């Protein structure tokens, strides 16, 4: 599995960096992809992450990091084009299709992803996942939202407050 550190691009230009997850798994990835993270970009610009060293990410486990990198690698070419003004409609459609499938995952994974995206400052990923969670809330009643997000059942006082709100804003529940 392990490939030469020098990278295998035909002009040898793809600089690789190593990221180390909280459970000590090492991921080697192109610097361009990792740089979608504002946090990592700083480190990489500073010369970090290359060679035998790695950038430790003590708050991201390997399952989440692998998912995060899947996103970064897919989006890196478009990001390199500065938001891809010259991207074809096909490219954009392909990214959209990828994004839709990408967030079609378990809620717990979504939560880990949004935390990781938040901490690594990957704006696109963060808004992609946040939008997905927001979509899960749309059109639902407060009770359904609580269940969807795994909140415990409301206490009697909370239930009373909920009912009062529903009475006051009845039109928002129609």
């Amino acid at each position, binding site marked *: 599995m392990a490939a030469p550190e020098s990278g295998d691009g035909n002009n040898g230009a793809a600089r690789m960096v190593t990221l180390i997850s909280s459970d000590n798994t090492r991921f080697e990835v192109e610097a361009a992809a990792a740089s979608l993270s504002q946090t990592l970009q*700083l480190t990489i610009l500073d010369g970090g992450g290359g060679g035998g060293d790695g950038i430790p990410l003590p708050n991201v486990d390997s399952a989440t990091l692998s998912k995060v990198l899947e996103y970064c690698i897919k989006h890196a070419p478009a990001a*390199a084009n500065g938001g891809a003004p010259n991207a074809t409609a096909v490219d954009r459609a392909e990214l959209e299709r990828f994004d839709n499938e990408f967030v079609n995952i378990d809620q717990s994974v979504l*939560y880990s992803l*949004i935390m990781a995206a938040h901490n690594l400052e990957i704006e696109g990923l963060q*808004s992609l996942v946040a939008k997905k969670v927001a979509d899960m809330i749309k059109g639902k009643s407060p009770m359904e*939202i609580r269940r969807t997000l795994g*909140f415990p059942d409301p206490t009697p006082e*909370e239930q009373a407050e*909920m009912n009062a709100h529903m009475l006051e804003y009845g039109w928002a529940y129609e």
Partner: protein
Amino acid sequence: MQDTAADSSIRRVPATPRPTNPGRQRQALGRSARSMEKTAKKVRSQDSSGATAAVLPEELIAWEILIRLRGKDLIRCGAVCRAWHRLTSDPDFLLAHHQRQPSVPLVSLHGKTAWHRIDSVDAAIDAFDLHQRPTVRQPVLRFNDYSHRRRFVVHASCDGLILLSLSNGRFYLCNPATRQWISLPKLTGGGVAGMYLHTASGEYRVLYWTGTRRSVAPDAVYHVLTIGSSAEPRCIQQPIDSPSVKFFVASGLNNLMFLGSRPVLLHDCLYWVQLWGLETKAILVFDTVRESFRLMRYPTEFHQPCPCLLQMGGTLGISWRSTTMMKLCVLQDYRTEAWSLKYQIEFPVAEISGMVESPRFSGMIVSEDGDALIHCSSSFHMFHIDSKGKLLQKFRWDGLVSSATGFRFKESLFRHAFLERPRGRGRPRQPRFFRGL
């Protein structure tokens, strides 16, 4: 450019026992580590009642997820738990939410005959979200306006508030997102020039005039009404920067020169473009800080019939239309008053002609991207075209006359004190502007 196939580019390297962590990396990552600590603390500090997800920090839920919800969805979230209730009542959050909302053009719909009604009302205002595909039409107001001789008029749309007058001549201020409304009886009998946020005081103010009707030598007197203030409107006479302005403001702003011209609010000024009459055209400006009128050069070099002002990305735009095309130019430089052509849009005449009989087009550029809404006076259609003249969507309302108001609307759930009604006995009666919504 590297070809980065998703799977092959991640290479898992077996963990090695040498923990390499040079100081400079730790430094750069410090930011992320700190924010982790911060968010972790937030989870723990949550109140036991709501336990807003044991998984996600409250701040992330609020500012990343809930802020993306629109109107009713966000209001319903206020009932989910105490933390969310606090959040959805927090003025800072609601203002930030408002800032994120798209600015969408408002279209008015009038029932041509009494039996043609939309959801049991004969008057409506809809917002068209042109960024969505297909275009999403959102109901904003639904009410009865009864009269067949006069129609309701939208006078202003400012920060989610809509100022309109009905056929009975009365003025109302509504926030469709919170379903709040008040009447503004002091405006009755006056002519509304525009509404604006007075930035220094944070007050919403209405500029209006009185005293021109049936007058041989019209001499309008202008007033400023502060919304929510119990004080009488303040009379500012006829404030002009130079004698040349007097001609334009003397008979009020619904005189023939400005009839149908909708004000644009930009950089603390209200702007109107002269629609009719006179070879030398003008743009009239009311400075809301200095409270006086002045004139601005009209770009004669681009002139065509039917000029219409609009806001284009922080500057002024003017669009013109003929029966087959529209064009738009934008103000490049406030100081030199230089304008430049931005869009020239040919109507898809052939395509539309196949759909409606004897089409006579009129239309309006309504978005910053140069999207336009055009309608045909002979039929009950409206068409959404993009800045290249491509037909994107067709709307049809039987018996309803639709027209773009020239105003845009940006939803706001912010609860202004002046719209709050005292909590009375029993349920508040259903406001008249939201029937069937």
